[in-house]
């Protein structure tokens, strides 16, 4: 009995992490058709936000409840970054999935390097550059002969601002040395600890316990899914998002601001990545590579579930989680003990790294039979 409970819980807990990580991606990929390779890095930013919030609350009476503030902060920070990403990069690339894939992959590399190198000196340098360059742009853009000055601004002000920013930030670095040049986070990962009430676990049966962090993540996943469901189905903006997904042109004709809808959807998807980042920070590492560990699995969930269907992602995450738990913990080996060949076959795959191979193989086989996933979209809207 305990064993069965343990297996169900094991599968559920893997699945809930997968789902939480995939939820944001499913919205962005499913509703907007954007393949966001930077999704993992948005999760990483969420995890780093948790670290910052945790440190800010250290020593205050609320220290034990920092996690709730971290959830809000992570959602807001990553939603903002997602918004910037959408406004700055992705909106130029709608309808061109390959270019979006490449661009967001580049963004993911930039974000990784950003958390490695960001320091006061770095922030000062980039800030000064932006101030000078965009300041000049904004100032000159109001002149009537701006079109003529355009090239001049780009080719003279650009390098000039860069040079000024470079010189002054290295001056700053030389004056204050380590205090400004020391990276905030560095290449080394940082340490996010669960609040005290989340450590340990709920004892069941003899000697086994359900970790509180896992229970918390399962609850968080349920809250997020319900929240998204409510948002998409019960609010005016949810209606608009669904309308744009079904028929962008018609929605536009009816007065729905499609560009705002795009930005909003992307921001919400990114915010969910931030929430997932808080969760994975509780479970695993917070380092510049954190996102990479999850990105492949999240795509698997979205693809198996069927693009554009939230319920597909939910079922797929549960299925993948359960299958990887059952294979990885060798639950099948004893069941087929009548056949030594089968037993040794399952034992061979009963290791964390071989289980992954097996799960991917099963996914490939599955996609041969249902190329559009578990719950494919039907009807004429598919190609719209």
């Amino acid at each position, binding site marked *: 009995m305990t064993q069965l409970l343990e297996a169900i819980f094991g599968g559920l807990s893997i699945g809930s992490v997968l789902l939480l990580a995939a939820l944001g991606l499913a919205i962005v990929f499913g509703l907007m058709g954007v393949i966001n390779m930077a999704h993992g890095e948005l999760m990483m930013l969420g995890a780093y936000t948790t670290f910052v919030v945790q440190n800010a609350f250290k020593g205050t009476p609320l220290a034990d409840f920092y996690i709730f503030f971290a959830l809000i902060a992570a959602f807001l920070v990553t939603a903002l970054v997602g918004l910037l990403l959408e406004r700055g990069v992705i909106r130029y690339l709608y309808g061109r999935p390959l270019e979006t894939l490449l661009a967001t992959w580049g963004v993911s590399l930039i974000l990784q390097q950003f958390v490695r190198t960001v320091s006061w000196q770095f922030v000062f340098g980039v800030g000064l550059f932006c101030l000078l360059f965009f300041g000049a742009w904004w100032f000159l853009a109001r002149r009537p002969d701006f079109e003529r000055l355009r090239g001049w601004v780009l080719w003279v002000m650009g390098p000039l601002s860069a040079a000024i920013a470079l010189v002054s930030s290295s001056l700053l670095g030389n004056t204050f040395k*380590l205090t400004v040049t020391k990276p905030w986070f560095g290449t080394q990962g940082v340490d996010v600890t669960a609040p005290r009430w989340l450590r340990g*676990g709920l004892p069941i049966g003899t000697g086994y316990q359900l970790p509180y962090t896992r229970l918390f993540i399962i609850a968080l996943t349920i809250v997020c899914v319900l929240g998204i469901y409510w948002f998409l189905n019960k609010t005016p903006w949810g209606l608009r998002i669904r309308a744009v997904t079904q028929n962008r042109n018609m929605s536009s004709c009816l007065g729905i601001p499609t560009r705002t809808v795009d930005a909003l959807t992307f921001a919400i998807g990114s915010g969910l990545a931030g929430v997932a980042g808080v969760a994975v920070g509780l479970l695993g*590492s917070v380092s510049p590579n954190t996102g990479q560990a999850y990105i492949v699995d999240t795509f698997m969930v979205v693809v198996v579930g069927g693009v554009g269907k939230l319920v597909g992602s939910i079922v797929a995450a549960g299925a993948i989680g359960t299958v990887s738990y059952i294979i990885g913990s060798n639950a099948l080996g004893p069941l087929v003990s009548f056949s030594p060949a089968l037993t040794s076959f399952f034992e061979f795959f009963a290791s964390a790294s071989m289980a992954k191979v097996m799960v991917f193989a099963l996914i490939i086989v599955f996609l041969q039979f249902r190329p559009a996933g578990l719950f494919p979209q039907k009807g004429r809207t598919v190609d719209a």
Partner: protein
Amino acid sequence: MTKQFGRREFIILSSTAAGSVFLKACSGSTPTATTASPEASPAAATSGDVIKVGILHSLSGTMAISEKSVVDAEQLAIEEINNAGGVLGKKIDPIVEDGASDWPTFNEKAKKLIDQDKVATIFGCWTSASRKAVLPTFESKNHMLWYPVQYEGQECSKNIFYTGAAPNQQIEPSVEWLLKNKGKEFFLVGSDYVFPRTANTIIKAQLEALGGKTVGEDYIPLGGTEVTPIISKIKTALPNGGVIYNTLNGDSNVAFFKQLQGAGMGPDKYPSMSVSIAEEEVKAIGVEYLKGHYAAWNYFQTVDTPKSKAFVEAFKKKYGEDRVVNDPMEAAYIMVYLWKQAVEKAGTADDLEKVRAAAIGQTFDAPEGMVTMQPNHHISKFVRIGEVRDDGLFEIIFSTKEAVKPLPWNQYVADTKGYGCDWTDPAKGGKYKMT
């Protein structure tokens, strides 16, 4: 009139921004790579008043986390030597190359350092995979690599000096200690690549020979974080507690220890011994999760010798108070000194045969204690076991009195049992049958 950014402006803007960030990264306060002048004379390792040496580690990619601090330690040793008058009256000029955690890149950069920069020697590599990748280059060009990290052994090259631990200087003593103090039943957990797999082969052979038992073994892909099935398996294999021998590398450690604690498997019932967790890693994993667990190394920051204190102090002074030192950094630091002594004894940095011969027998009063370069190109080292304490440093609970002699060929594994390595005797070489 106002106009929104078009795509063209965006591209130009972003390339300017990227360029400025790149330039800034190059001109930052971090020690920058000194690029070699292309018109350097042919025999240029020692030219004028400098001796050029190569530093080849990952400054980017997944291994940068660990290797960056090793570069810092090497730079510190070089700076100290230069301030004290240099080698043979010449200053050491390090040329830093980034292997980018990519093994072919390591090989390319090694070739570049040897052929174009004509360095006198190279200090570098961390993972066994990177070392195995550059090994053919060093052997074919008969050049010299100094390698600072504990490794799985089963290798003995004339062209490499190993200043990290061989298995009998880290893994084997820690297994013996566990058998004596912590229990007979072992579960082996590791990352899925060459070092953990070879190390676990050695541990299994050793446990069999010494009356212990391997109850299970599992591997996570490098960087993987989903450890739920492994924890269930440990629970099933060791229902009443037992030893976990941990050869996980990098981020997987964080997930493993956090979730181990979540499952209620603390160090009192499930003590774990790690061989890849040092002071730097404890900071990232979190002391709360590691407290009471063990690690085996040759050096800990808490080693209480004047040399060790001076090393820690010098490092903090150069890189900041909150930095810590660890075993591979110490090995990297001492190998620069051992090379310097060898060059001084040989009287030249360019004649590698002479330097190699002179290196053997060199002793150095290292932070870990007095070490000596052996004829098999490994050094004798002190073995220590530490327990993670509240401040994230290690309480040393076991230490050998003498430095342990290195055995690169493992004496428990059937294939290599009875073999040794001796580069001073042409008749013996890299693998000979010991009597």
